[in-house]
C-alpha cells in the first residue's frame, strides 16, 4: 500500500465520521455551542469517541520505531504555550462560533455544494494565505 492510498483511506474514514455524526450540519455544532439555548450534546459525544480512540490507539502506534510506510513520525515539535497559540485559538473559536464551521466539516460541505460552506471555505483559504503572508514579513 502506498502512502497516497493510506491517506485516501484515512480521509474517507474521517469524512464519513464527520457526516455520520452530523458535524457537517452547522446547526448541530451551533446548538452544542449554545449553552443558553436549545443545547445539543452531539459534539461532546463525537469528541469523546474520537479522543478515547486516539488516547488508546496512539500509544502502541507511537511505540513503534517508525510508521509502516514512512521513515519517521512527524509530530509537532513545539510545546510552547505562547501568544500565537492562544491568539490563533481565540480567533478560530470566534469564527467557529459565528458560522458553525470548522475546517473539516466546511470542506465536506463545500464538496457537497452547500452554498454557505463554499463561501466560508473561500474566505478560510484567504485567511490562511493572509496569515502566511504576514508571518513571512515578520519572521520569528
Amino acid at each position: 500500500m502506498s502512502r497516497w492510498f493510506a491517506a485516501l483511506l484515512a480521509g474517507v474514514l474521517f469524512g464519513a465520521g464527520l457526516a455520520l455524526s452530523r458535524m457537517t450540519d452547522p446547526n448541530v455544532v451551533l446548538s452544542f455551542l449554545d449553552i443558553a439555548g436549545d443545547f445539543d450534546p452531539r459534539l461532546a459525544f463525537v469528541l469523546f469517541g474520537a479522543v478515547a480512540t486516539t488516547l488508546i490507539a496512539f500509544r502502541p502506534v507511537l511505540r513503534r520505531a517508525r510508521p509502516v510506510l514512512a521513515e519517521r513520525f512527524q509530530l509537532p515539535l513545539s510545546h510552547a504555550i505562547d501568544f500565537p497559540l492562544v491568539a490563533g485559538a481565540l480567533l478560530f473559536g470566534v469564527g467557529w462560533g459565528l458560522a458553525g464551521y470548522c475546517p473539516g466539516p466546511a470542506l465536506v460541505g463545500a464538496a457537497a455544494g452547500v452554498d454557505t460552506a463554499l463561501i466560508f471555505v473561500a474566505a478560510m483559504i484567504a485567511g490562511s494565505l493572509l496569515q502566511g503572508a504576514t508571518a513571512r514579513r515578520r519572521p520569528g
Partner: protein
Amino acid sequence: MPWSALIGGVLIGLAATALLWFNGRIAGVSGIVNGLASQATGERGWRIAFLLGLAGGGVLVMKLTGQAASSPSGTPILLLAGLLVGFGTRLGSGCTSGHGVCGLGRLSLRSLVAVMVFMAAAIVTVYVSRHLPGAGA
C-alpha cells in the same frame, strides 16, 4: 444517547490512528490544507489524497443520510468567520482535529490549552450573537 455521534467520533479517531500508523502524520485538517503550498517533495500527494477522501467519504454519507444543511449565517458573517478560521488555525497551528482529536490523544498540554481557548471563544461568540439584545446574527 446519540449513538451515531459516538460512532462517528470513533471513526474520526480511527482515521487519525491510521494516518499516524501508516504515514506518521497528524490528521489535522487545517495543517494538511496549509501544507499544500509546501515545495518539498512528497509533501503534496498524500495531502491531496487525504482531502479527496475526506470530501468523498463525507459527501457520500451526507447524501446517504439525506443531509443538505447550510449555516444560518448570512454571507458577510460567513466571510468574516472563514477569514478568522483560516487565519486563526494557521497562527495557532491547528483546529478541532489537530489540537482536539490528535493533540488530546497525545496528551499535549499545548493542544489542551488551544482546545479550551477555542471552545470558550466559540461559546461566548454564540452567546453574544444569539442572546444579547441588539447583537443578532
